[in-house]
């Protein structure tokens, strides 16, 4: 990898340029421009139906833009299959977590051995980051609390050794204390060099860990800045703090 020394670090790890996307004939993204610099945490904020999840789906290869481009590390990847991107290290943790409720914690983790790691390795990584999961390894995922399920979803994501993490509404339905705990872990993950795009409706906690934030409304990015820039806006605007 020494051939990459002196590489241009201005190229964002993930970039959307003029992305339009539609469900059937209904266009929901009307030209989205967004960049996630290497190693940065970017928060994408906005109200219900703004198109945040759709934006993540486009990044993950689950939807192809009807217009515009998606770049990974400077390469245009429109049309790449989601499994291809997942194998490279683009990891999506979807809204509603996407754990298998009728499998145990351990069985859920064993699903991630596709990435080439053995189950003991996957478990070791998961339990180091989330000790609480270790106590519950034989419990059915669906019977755990929301916070624990979110931890499991994150542990599963981390097992793939991601380079880019796409997180959708980590805080959904969780108590503020748990949300803070989860974001502390997000910050730890970011500190290891993983670039993160995180979607939230409510801003407060995520702005604490984000390097940049963007506000989305009705399929467009309406504002981009540092968390400090946006905090003042947000407290007065539609997000209600």
């Amino acid at each position, binding site marked *: 990898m020494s051939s990459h020394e002196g590489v241009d670090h201005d190229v964002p*790890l993930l970039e959307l340029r003029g992305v339009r996307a539609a469900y059937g004939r209904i266009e929901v993204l009307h030209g989205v421009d967004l960049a996630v610099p290497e190693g940065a945490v970017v928060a994408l904020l906005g109200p219900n139906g703004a198109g945040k999840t759709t934006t993540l789906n486009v990044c993950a290869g689950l939807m192809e833009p009807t217009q515009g481009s998606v770049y990974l590390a400077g390469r245009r*990847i429109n*049309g790449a*299959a989601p499994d291809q991107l997942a194998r490279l*290290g683009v990891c999506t943790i979807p809204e509603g977590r996407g754990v298998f409720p009728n499998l145990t914690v351990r069985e859920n983790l064993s699903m991630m051995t596709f990435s080439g790691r053995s189950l003991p390795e996957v478990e070791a990584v998961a339990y180091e980051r989330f000790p609480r999961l270790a106590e519950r390894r034989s419990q059915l995922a669906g019977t755990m*609390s929301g916070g624990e399920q979110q931890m499991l979803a994150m542990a599963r994501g981390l097992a793939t050794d991601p*380079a880019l993490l796409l997180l959708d509404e980590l805080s959904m339905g969780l108590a503020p204390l748990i949300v803070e705990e989860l974001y502390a872990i997000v910050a730890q993950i970011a500190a*290891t*060099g993983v670039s993160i795009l995180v979607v939230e409706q409510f801003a407060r906690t995520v702005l604490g860990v984000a390097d940049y934030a963007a506000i989305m409304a009705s399929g467009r990015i309406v504002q981009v800045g540092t968390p400090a820039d946006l905090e003042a806006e947000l407290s007065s605007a539609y997000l209600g703090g």
Partner: protein
Amino acid sequence: METNTQRVEEFKQEVASMHLSAPVDASERTWLLVGIGLAVAGIVFIVFGWYGASGEAEVAKQVPYIISGAVVGLGFVMAGCALFLRYSLGRYLRFWLVRDLYEQRAQTDRIIEALHATGRGREEF
């Protein structure tokens, strides 16, 4: 865990050397259309073959029409139908699988809810 720049470099390299193929969905639709096209072309061949053969009194002169019309035409129809079935059924079966998964999850949720109702559920944070 320490900062892992090597992982990022590896990622960049893999992205750069990734092979981008047409999305499955698009190629599938193409094959579906090819199948329909082949079947229609086959029917056209058969009609022309029949038309040509019916205009010839001698059996020997009817043979070429039968070959290019009936045999080639039938071949096209069969290949076209096979493609059509393969690519329309594949799609259908996938939807079915997803639906099945979805319903199974909903079912599990209901069971968990019922467990909660009997007071044997989890403690909340």
